[in-house]
């Protein structure tokens, strides 16, 4: 390929890639994110920092300590609190109650709803109120299979099991998560490593 040919090739390749890029950017404009992005980001950052800090300490811990080291509250990604709270619907307010820590209100409202999202947040609320038995039993449901929260359900269930000293069951779940494209995969690996080192 002579120099001219190389220039032609580079120019055409770039032209095609720019066209693809434009096509994908159009897709972005059409598909506005359904849910805010930042709560996920915040959650991931906080969870990663927590796991990393724990790993740095590198101490032998009990299962309950491990729970404390790895557990972080899942963010309200349904209707995060904003300045315009007044516009929130009754349902949305329940998730905001969860976010604010008004767990009694959140529980009574979420219990009356029938959706995967409501059940997931109800279980999370039980975790926050240290009712691990109830949380674990809610998270142990096939209803979450295929839902957007499926992998998080397994993660929080594994943590609840750990808290209840059911280490073997927790490890089974973590091993399952290890093979998935899970945003907290690094935490899963670290927790498994810590459990092995105990």
């Amino acid at each position, binding site marked *: 390929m002579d120099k001219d040919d190389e*220039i032609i090739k580079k*120019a*055409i*390749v770039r032209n095609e890639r720019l066209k693809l890029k434009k096509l994908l950017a159009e897709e972005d404009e059409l*598909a506005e994110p359904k849910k805010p992005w930042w709560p996920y*980001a915040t959650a991931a*950052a906080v969870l990663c920092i927590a796991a990393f800090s724990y790993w740095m300490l590198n101490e032998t811990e009990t299962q309950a300590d491990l729970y404390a080291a790895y557990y972080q509250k899942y963010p309200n990604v349904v209707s995060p609190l904003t300045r315009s709270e007044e516009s929130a619907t009754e349902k949305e307010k329940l998730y905001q109650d969860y976010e604010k820590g008004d767990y009694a209100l959140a529980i009574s409202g979420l219990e009356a709803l029938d959706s995967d999202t409501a059940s997931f947040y109800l279980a999370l609320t039980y975790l926050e109120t240290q009712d691990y038995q109830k949380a674990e039993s809610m998270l142990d449901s096939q209803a979450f299979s295929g839902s957007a929260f499926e992998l998080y359900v397994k993660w929080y269930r594994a943590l609840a099991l750990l808290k209840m000293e059911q280490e073997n069951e927790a490890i089974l779940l973590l091993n399952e998560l290890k093979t998935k494209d899970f945003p907290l995969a690094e935490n899963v690996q670290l927790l498994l490593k810590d459990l092995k080192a105990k």
Partner: protein
Amino acid sequence: MKQIDLLKSGDQLALKAFYGEHKSAFLFFGNRYDLDREELIDVYQDACIVLFEKLKAGKLEDVNSSLKTYLFGIGKNLIFKRFKQKAKVVDLDTVEITSFEDPFKDDETLEEKRMRAAFVKLGGQCQEVLRLFYYEEKSLDEIVSILTYKDKNVLKSQKSRCLKQLKDLVKQNG
């Protein structure tokens, strides 16, 4: 037809669907790295383009992992390449850098820019012949079959005419 087969066939609608399907997960995954959202989206677009081109070129036949896993691997790789370009402090020894080409790695030279400007002014048939030859890297025999030319000699003449037109346009614009 399965999604992977559509992508291999170069179906751009399938690419758009695939892009939308994994975008949120990629942004969540990529958020652990110190890039702002716009740049992360830019990387994600590039990763999808790399994957799409590899699939079309039949270069992913022996990949065992899922497309999503492979896509995230490419994305991670591109993120680290950007860090390297910006000389951000990353422990590259701990990162597996494989040979994914950054689709926009080189700055476009003035000559290339002029050539690209001329290319888009060519007629549709010439653009298609040259696109198949240079971008899709199809052989002349394949192009004869795709564009239903009478034979290879006719195609060769057409390609020569197109290249001449292209170079003339560059001169006119230069």
